[in-house]
């Protein structure tokens, strides 16, 4: 039973939809810049990859109330683009799910309210939603999409949206649902900016993943979704699916709460598991979209694990120099990029890369590669808590 990708949608610092993202990827246009939207004391000193639209502009575009969390606006725009792109005849007649991921829920909205709460625990500004209510954002968007049959939210740190796609695919394979809109979203918040800053893993310049002299990550925001469909639904589509989800796996590094094991045990198991499910060999993978955050620890663990599995490492790159690390959204956004890679026979460069890491025998792609045959793309995402997930997208001939 194949699970096809019928549609995709994305919003990130490099574009408000799929076409704009693809154009920026091709034009080597980074989204990392000075912070202009999030009100923070680090606006001038720590760069990030923000969606360059205010909350009011986003709310107007997606039709939600401008007082709602920014995360919901991003989610709504990308999820709706994905559903429109899929253009499924009789959408309502199928059993449909919305499986979304995020890591800090309504934080961008509630961290403001929390300030008033600290001054007065009985403030009129108190709302029902907790800062960490991840499901709140999902329900706002599910309501807009008119999806009711199965709604849930996954929050496994930076691997969240891979797990959302995998869970959706498993529900389709088990014949529980016919269509699943799956992916993730996250908006910038002071909470995450200060959190990563306190861990001293933010680069104060645009990030350089997999570089020997990498200094850390840049945070970003956005959302990315795919529409997963069963074979039965795929047969009814006017636009033939270009790709299918051929493998996925979720493993745990069980090493440390926030750091990866030096040998990348969890990373290895996730990639291995995805390969096994897809029944592909390492030689079949044409491109790996790396987790590649730019931190010393992540890139080393991931790189060592890739080397161990692949030996002869295929073309690899991190697209985070374009989008920043979008946390709960990153695997959703990178899923869209992986599919674009297959559809357009194109491989995106790892911007700003200069020096090969001394521990690794390979280095990432540094120039845009066009007219290369791309049939299978692996996309990695690893997070706090040792959560490691990999997914493989394959061309549907």
């Amino acid at each position: 039973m194949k699970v096809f990708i019928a549609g995709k949608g994305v919003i990130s610092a490099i574009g408000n939809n799929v076409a704009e993202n693809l154009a920026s990827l091709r034009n080597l246009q980074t989204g990392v810049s000075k912070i202009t939207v999030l009100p923070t004391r680090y606006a001038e000193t720590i760069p990030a990859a923000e969606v360059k639209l205010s909350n009011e502009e986003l709310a107007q575009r997606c039709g939600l109330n401008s007082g709602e969390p920014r995360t919901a606006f991003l989610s709504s725009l990308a999820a709706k683009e994905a559903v429109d792109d899929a253009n499924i005849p009789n959408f309502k007649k199928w059993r449909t799910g919305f499986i979304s991921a995020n890591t800090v829920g309504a934080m961008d909205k509630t961290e403001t309210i929390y300030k008033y709460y600290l001054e007065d625990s009985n403030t009129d500004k108190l709302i029902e939603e907790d800062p960490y209510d991840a499901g709140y954002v999902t329900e706002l968007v599910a309501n807009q999409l008119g999806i009711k049959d199965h709604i849930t939210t996954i929050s496994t740190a930076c691997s969240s949206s891979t797990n959302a796609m995998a869970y959706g695919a498993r529900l389709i394979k088990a014949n529980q649902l016919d269509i699943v809109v799956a992916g993730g979203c996250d908006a910038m918040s002071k909470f995450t900016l200060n959190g990563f800053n306190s861990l001293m893993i933010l680069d104060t310049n645009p990030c350089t993943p997999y570089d020997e002299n990498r200094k850390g990550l840049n945070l970003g925001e956005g959302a990315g979704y795919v529409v997963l469909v069963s074979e039965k639904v795929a047969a009814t589509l006017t636009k033939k699916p270009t790709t299918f989800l051929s493998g996925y796996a979720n493993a745990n590094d069980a090493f440390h709460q926030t750091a990866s094991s030096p040998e990348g045990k969890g990373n290895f198991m996730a990639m291995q598991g995805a390969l096994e499910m897809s029944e592909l060999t390492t030689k079949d993978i044409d491109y790996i979209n790396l987790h590649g955050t730019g931190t010393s620890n992540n890139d080393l663990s991931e790189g060592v694990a890739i080397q161990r599995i692949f030996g002869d490492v295929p073309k690899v790159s991190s697209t985070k120099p374009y989008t920043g690390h979008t946390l709960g959204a990153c695997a959703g956004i990178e899923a869209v990029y992986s599919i674009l890679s297959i559809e357009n026979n194109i491989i995106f460069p790892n911007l700003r890369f200069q020096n090969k890491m001394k521990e690794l025998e390979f280095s990432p792609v540094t120039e845009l590669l066009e007219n290369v045959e791309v049939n299978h793309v692996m996309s990695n995402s690893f997070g706090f808590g040792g959560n490691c997930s990999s997914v493989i997208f394959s061309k549907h001939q």
Partner: protein
Amino acid sequence: MSNQKENKTVFKAPFGGLGAGLFINGIGCISPQRTFDNSEFLAEVKEYNTNRLTCVDADYTKFFDAGSIRRMGRLMKYGTAAGMIALRDAGLEVPGAISTGTALGLPEVSQKFLKSLIEVDETIVSPTTFIQSTHNTVSSNIALLCKCFSHNNTFSHKGFSFESALTDAQLLVLENMNNILVGAYDEVSDYKYAAMKKTKELRGEPCNNLDIYGEKGNGVIAGEGAAFFVLAKEKTENTYGSFVGNKTFYKPESTEEIRNHILSFLKENNSSLEDIDVVITGISGAKETDATRIDLNKNLFTTQTIIAYKHLCGEYMTSSAFAFWLASKMMKSQQIPDSVILENRNRSPKNILLYNSHKHNHSLMLFKAC
């Protein structure tokens, strides 16, 4: 994680239509009652004269070293310990996989971080609380402690959080995994408590947790807890009963629709209302939402013994995990404690149906004693 081709189990489908179900082979529960000791079953019910119930702590030195106990937040301690109790109860060192649900993650510890960054206006904050702030902290902490490298998932969706973890566990078994540690955990933070007060969701004080279902007063009492279970394909000497299946539904428009969901859920699981001995209802003390539950109790569940549980653990979004624990204990002991009976029809707890809801999230679970 999976091997779809070798699917030979009796297990069929997560949302119903399943035959034998999964065996509950280990349980662990830490709640506002003394529930951490599996050799007891609500021998004494704890009475609270407040609208906020907090967990009765277990002896954490049995699970963690002194340094860890100091560093860990409250929920991290009782959430992780509940998972370890379930594993030990099942006699397992490492589960096949871990899947958990938490509506709000670790609010106390994350708000400590939020508070500090607001107070110092983003200047210098310590990463200690940030590190523990992700929703998957408890689930991954258990993996870390028992060295479980397998599938590890955390669902964070309001009143569907635990339910999604259960579905995940069932899918894993379908994919040929076994001994899945599944659970849920939430805590009532000061902020949540203040918000519940402000939005009038909370019952006014003075109030008594043992008297919330009557005419007197309106509103829920805030609660919290953690409950974990080992779900497996095979029965063991320690088996509590079987978890047959579950179903969630979103935003039903009428009591009639809820009724139809209940009846079709039972049918999908080759059961019927006549087979059900005990109904665990999610009645909470909030008049408006209880109206539907009372209607169903009066007009649909006319021959079943009806029991309630939110006076024991309070209202929170993953309270259905406490109800799962209650069902497990009743099945194994074949006893229904007086303290949970709302309507006694003298039925022994063989087939148990749970119907709970939180706002727009409605859930059904079916259990069968072995």
